[in-house]
């Protein structure tokens, strides 16, 4: 009887493991707060970008004088320094802000001018067609039409990790962003959005 019980138990454990193993892929809601990672996750980028976006939109200094007539400021994306211990693509942050600003109707972003060259080189490349016999020259984009940016978006993502107690560490991240008015070099807007996480001290955070 004892042997049968042990066998039954083994079968049940095996079945449980098997069933558990079947659930390999699932879509999760990162906004629910159920999934907290030591590193920066998509919800951290979302939250920081949304907060920054709301602050920029509500800033009285960033209202175009001809806003009612469709006037828009032009923004160039400058350098966002990743000063964390994780390999992250800083576009995750800037893209969300750009999309939000475009949708708000306050800013347009130039892809023709960037710190390390154009984000989209096509603006310059299409002008090389001005001697092409193949291309209808009246459709070739003219020089002197590209619009220079009014503002530059720069920033830094900083990480500070400290031991909390014997088994936990506190990881603080700071999203620091600045909008510089390029005419004067003055920062018209700055924002800092901290995120703190309590994680296990067993290993490193990356």
């Amino acid at each position, binding site marked *: 009887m004892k042997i049968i019980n042990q066998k039954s138990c083994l079968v049940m454990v095996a079945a449980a493991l098997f069933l558990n193993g079947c659930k390999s892929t699932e879509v999760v809601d990162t906004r629910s707060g159920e999934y907290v990672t030591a590193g920066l996750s998509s919800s951290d980028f979302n939250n920081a970008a949304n907060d920054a976006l709301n602050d920029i939109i509500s800033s009285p200094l960033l209202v175009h004088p001809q806003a009612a007539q469709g006037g828009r400021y032009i923004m160039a994306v400058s350098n966002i320094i990743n000063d964390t211990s994780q390999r992250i693509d800083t576009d995750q942050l800037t893209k969300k802000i750009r999309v939000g600003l475009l949708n708000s109707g306050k800013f347009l972003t130039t892809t023709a001018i960037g710190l390390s060259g154009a984000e989209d080189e096509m603006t310059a490349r299409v002008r090389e067609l001005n001697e092409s016999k193949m291309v209808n020259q009246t459709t070739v984009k003219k020089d002197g039409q590209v619009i220079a940016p009014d503002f530059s978006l720069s920033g830094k993502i900083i990480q500070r990790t400290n031991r909390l107690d014997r088994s936990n560490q506190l990881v603080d991240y700071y999203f620091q962003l600045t909008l510089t008015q390029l005419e004067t070099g003055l920062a018209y807007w700055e924002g800092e959005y901290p995120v703190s996480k309590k994680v296990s*001290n067993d290993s*490193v955070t*990356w």
Partner: protein
Amino acid sequence: MKRCLASIIPVILLSGCVSTSDLTGSTGTSNSPLYTNLQQHNLDGAISFAQTESGFDPEKKSVDDQLWAMQAGLLYRMKGDFASSTNYFDMIEDVMYSEDTENVLESGGEQIGSMLTNDTFLDYEQTLYDAVMVNTYKAINFEALGDIANARVEWNRSDDRQRRAAEFFAKQINKSKEELENQKDDEDAEASDIDKSVASANDLLAQQGIDMSGWKAYDGYVNPFSTFMHGLFFLRHANDAADIEKAIDSFERVVALTGSLAAKDTLDYAKSLRANPTAQNDYLWVIIENGEATQKEAFEINLPLYLVSSNINYAGVALPKLKEREETLGVFSVNDIQATSVADMDRIIQADFKDKFPLILTREITRTAIKTVAQKQINDHNPLLGLAAGFVQGLSTEADTRSWSLLPKNFQAVMLPRPADGRVKIAAEHLTTPLEVELTEPNAGVVYVKAMNPLVTPTIHLM
């Protein structure tokens, strides 16, 4: 129950006689395939050997053996293939993470296995200095590739590893104490018997000339080489004043720990950049990885074992000890300016070993006690089996001498004004021919040399 256990033990011992790999003869000895290849100037052969030993799986992009993967990563660096080197070090970090977060069941299983055999049956557990050096090498790999953004990430990782250093050692000391307590509770031998054996061992070790009293870690368990290179990165690639302050902090720390002239000169230069945080290309730093790090080697001693019967039995225990390797090249000079040491890797390794040795010793004594009791019981039951068990015990007594043997003995550095003719002459006391370097890349500010011994060709890279 005891009888049952005693009969099971030899079976396990016999079936488990293959340790992780033949490590004692292949990482550090001069006749190992690794060193034979290096001495024959066959770096590719050395890489191929290390790659095979690491169990590299190109499909899964993983390695089985962390130690050999670290050797492979460093060999690729020597070759100047920084991307492949970083790939290996990235795979190692995955293994390190698994080791750090290994659950109780896995760890317990390994420990039981090693109790019946020896420490080489445990997975190689990275030392703190291994982890710091992995991130340091990755950072300078990225810097050499011109990937400054990823180099910054690796420097932050290296910095975090250093921060964890003191915690790591404190935790390890507590863990050792707990393990000792657990072992005392678990084993058949009385607690006091193990203590008596350990006390005897200390006397015997002293008689063997093993004196670790002079071994002392750098304050805060810092690796000053990593700190120096961290400072140099933030000095050369500063984005803002905060980066220059980071560099100054690092150099101040290295000066306090080592008094190195290269660190003092670089600190002064960093301070001069406070007003304008853009480093000019006026200076050159030559970094030399010199010699070969101290190695572990095995030795055996006969210890009195105070067993349950209170009969005193003597049994052989195998233990690792450190053997410093000779300074074969001596002090370097660059354009006749003498280099100064920015870190003594031997000192870092010795301090780490000193902290771990009490646990290694107690584990080996406990293990020998278990085996000897089992052997005695088997022998009482069946003398022929007892003989076999004795044979197996002899075979399974082996010290764990694994270590990252390609690390250098020390790191030396020189800061000098950038030579007008772009030529740099690097000489050392016992280097037959000085190394001539031409600064072909106008933006190169660091010449990085690895010189192991007079038989292995030094490697030179610019970044």
